[in-house]
């Protein structure tokens, strides 16, 4: 039987060059399906990765109770002090708590790609910024100075928006702020932001309320004690989360949307590819009718014929999926894009085409090939020999 299968499949595959046009229908259909699926999932993976990279388990973020994001949170100066002084917060060599009470505001800047205005997060941060966030490094220029209208800009923000070059001036709240430095922070969400001294920012925005407090814990294990201390304090009404937990929650909605899109768009395209494959394989079986009937007349069984049709469908699907994966990787992997993040501002992230995503694309293609080859294979096996021989 194996000899028959190898012989019939081999003949079939050697004959593919004569059916190049129709075979390309499968390859291209599946390549496009896989490329779209992988690129949408790559968006989700890249966005997840960016937000997952944001934060450490030994850092906690405190928001007003019931607030899901910083924009909807407010914390008074008095409460901020209680939050920072609570037990479990790490202290520096001078015995001062490592924490940053922060405000966020949304500003509009033109995108480099389209020139259209898009939201960017402007964050006022405390003086312990670099101790609190050691992953943040100035890569160009210098750190902003307190009491001056100076900002540092994230590398990703600088790449996406116009007017963020060193020395540039940005209009905010009727005054001009100078870009004095560019920072990177391990590709996390903060790289899409602009940062300035908190007191200067509050003053410019005529605010006296903070929106979040980020603290460095003595260790990741002290989180519970810290959280309990704040949530049992009757003067406070706050939510305390580890940073990674907070950012994971922020990415959840978009990730769900992207996965939904990938599932539906990919699913509908896969269904189209199944019909394309069915059509092509029916046509392949039809064009091989004489061959199949002759082999059956000689004494070959139905199984080798079925296997040969399946192998062809699967092989073409595999080629299509590899091509689609390659296209997605070449054109999308590492591409910098931006989307609305938790504060209705742009989060810049890189599309990430991972081996797992490519594996998903190949798996989907093989399923398409399997379904697309099934009915033509059955037809080939049931081909009435006498009629097929007469039809030539």
């Amino acid at each position, binding site marked *: 039987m194996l000899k*028959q299968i190898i012989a019939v499949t081999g003949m079939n595959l050697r004959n593919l060059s*004569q059916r190049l046009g129709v075979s390309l229908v499968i390859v291209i259909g599946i390549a496009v399906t896989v490329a779209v699926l992988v690129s949408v999932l790559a968006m989700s993976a890249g966005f997840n990765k960016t937000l997952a990279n944001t934060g450490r388990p030994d850092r906690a973020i405190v928001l007003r109770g019931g607030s899901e994001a910083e924009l909807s949170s407010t914390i008074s100066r008095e409460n901020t002090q209680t939050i920072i002084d609570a037990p479990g917060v790490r202290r520096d060599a001078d015995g001062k708590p490592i924490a940053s009470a922060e405000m966020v505001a949304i500003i509009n800047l033109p995108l480099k790609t389209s020139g259209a205005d898009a939201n960017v997060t402007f964050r006022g941060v405390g003086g312990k910024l670099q101790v609190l966030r050691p992953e943040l490094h100035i890569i160009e220029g210098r750190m902003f100075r307190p009491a001056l209208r100076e900002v540092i800009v994230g590398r990703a923000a600088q790449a996406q928006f116009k007017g963020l070059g060193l020395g540039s001036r940005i209009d905010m709240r009727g005054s001009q702020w100078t870009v004095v430095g560019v920072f990177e922070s391990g590709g996390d969400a903060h790289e899409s932001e602009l940062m300035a001294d908190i007191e200067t920012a509050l003053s410019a925005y005529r605010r006296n309320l903070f929106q979040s407090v980020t603290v460095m814990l003595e260790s990741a294990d002290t989180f519970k004690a810290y959280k309990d201390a704040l949530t049992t304090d009757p003067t406070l009404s706050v939510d305390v989360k580890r940073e990674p937990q907070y950012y994971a929650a922020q990415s959840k909605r978009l990730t769900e949307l992207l996965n939904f899109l990938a599932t539906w768009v990919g699913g509908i395209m896969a269904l189209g590819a199944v019909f394309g494959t069915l059509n092509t394989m029916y046509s392949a079986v039809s064009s091989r009718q004489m061959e199949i009937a002759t082999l059956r007349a000689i004494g070959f069984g139905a199984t080798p014929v079925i296997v040969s049709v399946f192998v062809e469908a699967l092989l073409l699907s595999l080629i299509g999926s590899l091509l689609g994966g390659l296209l997605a990787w070449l054109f999308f992997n590492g591409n910098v894009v931006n989307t609305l993040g938790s504060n209705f501002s742009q989060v810049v992230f890189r599309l990430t085409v991972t081996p797992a995503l490519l594996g998903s694309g190949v798996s989907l293609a093989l399923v398409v090939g399997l379904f697309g080859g099934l009915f033509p294979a059955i037809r080939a096996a049931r081909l009435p020999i006498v009629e097929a*021989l007469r039809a030539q």
Partner: protein
Amino acid sequence: MSSIVSLKRVAKRYQRGKQTVEVLHSLDLEIEAGDFVALMGPSGSGKTTLLNLIGGLDRPSEGEVSVGGQRIDRLSGSALARFRARHIGFVFQFYNLMPMLSAQANVELPLLLTSLSAGKRHQHALTALQIVGLAERAKHKPAELSGGQAQRVAIARALVADPTLLVCDEPTGDLDRKTADEILGLLQLLNREHGKTIIMVTHDPKAAEYAKHILHMDKGTLAPQAVA
């Protein structure tokens, strides 16, 4: 001599829409081993249907079909496939060679259904090609052969597994007179020198003259007429 093909009260009916068409009517036939029989008759007389029943490509609606002493009318699809592989060599009007395979690989095809080693298959195929006079074209593909050469390759494929019966459906229908005579001469040689039993459907009276017996069919019945 004993009968190698035996048909008893064989009828074949087809359903065309709501209508039942009977192509063969209670047909009896005995063909002896070593015979060369030409089946003639007008189009639609049922000669190809009869050939398909003898070759195990189709089953009768009624009656018994035996080939080489074996009842084949009630065999399952897979058993019929095994029967054809072992006992029948087919020669078709349009050769039905696999275009992507060389002449030798085409001839080897039926041997893939046997337990022969690759070396033996190779050797047998070359021998069959030598018998039909085409050993030097073994590596050529069908597109590189003339019609007569392609039909010789098809004949080599039909006889390579040493079948009980050669079943030829209009084997010269696509060839010019000279080439047709060469092919018919070859079939005659296989019958006379190698003792092959041959049943051939043809429209051509000149082709039928190469056979030992001519059977005339008309409207699904047989009228035997011996020649030579």
